[in-house]
């Protein structure tokens, strides 16, 4: 479970330090609120929901503090992939970093975690129509940033 929490955190926070801090905060919150988790329901979905809320709280606090929050570039957190795979991963992560939080979260759940639209919408506590439109807008924006809109393959 922890590696998946870290991955989700990496997608939505955009950098390694924030990501692991978020995992820590979320696990602590989960331990405190463990009685709210319904046995039989998806624990991953419940944890991601906690992470989403914790991250939104965090960025609100940062915006209050700084007013402007410049997105940090994705750092050297790709593992030991081949140089080419690393470049692609970096460019995708850098492009993701430029999307609004809400689109990034939709992409994190559906494309990275493989959630169904329904499960993703429930996790984020939004209507499914909202989820699909955030997902579509996020994808279009990403493709535009990466310069492969219209290209096949």
């Amino acid at each position, binding site marked *: 479970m922890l590696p998946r929490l870290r991955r989700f955190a990496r997608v939505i926070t955009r950098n390694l330090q924030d990501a692991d801090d978020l995992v820590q905060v979320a696990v602590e919150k989960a331990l405190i609120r463990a009685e709210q988790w319904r046995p039989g329901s998806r624990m991953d979905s419940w944890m991601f929901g906690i992470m989403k809320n914790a991250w939104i709280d965090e960025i609100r606090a940062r915006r209050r503090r700084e007013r402007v929050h410049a997105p940090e570039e994705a750092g050297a957190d790709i593992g030991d992939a081949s140089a080419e*795979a690393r470049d692609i991963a970096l460019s995708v992560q850098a492009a993701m970093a430029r999307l609004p939080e809400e689109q990034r979260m939709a992409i994190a759940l559906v494309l990275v975690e493989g959630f169904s*639209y329904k499960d993703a919408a429930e996790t984020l506590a939004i209507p499914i129509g909202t989820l699909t439109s955030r997902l579509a807008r996020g994808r279009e924006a990403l493709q535009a940033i990466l310069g492969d809109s219209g290209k*096949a393959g």
Partner: protein
Amino acid sequence: MKFSDETLMAYADGELDLVARAEIEAAMAEDPAIARAVERHRAFAARVKSAYGGVLEEPVPERLADLVKGPVAAPVVDLAAKRAERAEARATIGRWRLPQWSALAASVAVGLFVGMLLMRGPSAPYEESEAGLVARGELDDALTQQLAGSVGTGRVRVGISFRDRGGAYCRTFHLEREAPLAGLACRSGEEWKLQLLAAASAREGELRPAAAMPMAVLHAVDAAIEGEPLDAAAESAARDAGWRTNSDVAE
């Protein structure tokens, strides 16, 4: 036939129903541009996913792994001191009680959550039933058969046995495994219902099983116990009677 990009993405994600899927597949067969668009969405989704694949392979930093190891405070149980504390608590005014119980509720929940995180899978020594988590396999056997303090051959060591305020028999246990667990189980019908599971530290030696009992378990015992822990004779008699209580017999 014209489809929105959103619809084609949903198709690529496997989200459309049969009818919509058939329509798109028919359109793809006729119009290569639609087929290419779908393929592009699929490839793009795979690319995004693989960009984050490396995170799963990374070792989890210790500070995060430590979080789910739970409470590992490992005092030697001093029952005499515990009894004195408890008597003192009872002597104080009633408002002490409520926070005590809510702290117990919180620690039970935390213990169970940590337990679920630590130990999922088919070999878990407990399973979910309508009644909550109940002991299974070696844990069930040991709780039913093993006398407290005896050094069995299995991985389970029973700590103390006592009756709770409802009269039911309860027993603490320690389960030796890669990530040791300790807990409290109470008899409910024909089963041992788990009241608390918590991560424990490894036992330091055969003769000090109590050394590994986490604080959360001790607190749970304190809050639940009525009277004193069973002595060896009472425990043995309770076991031989199948852990039934008078109210069970009356039913």
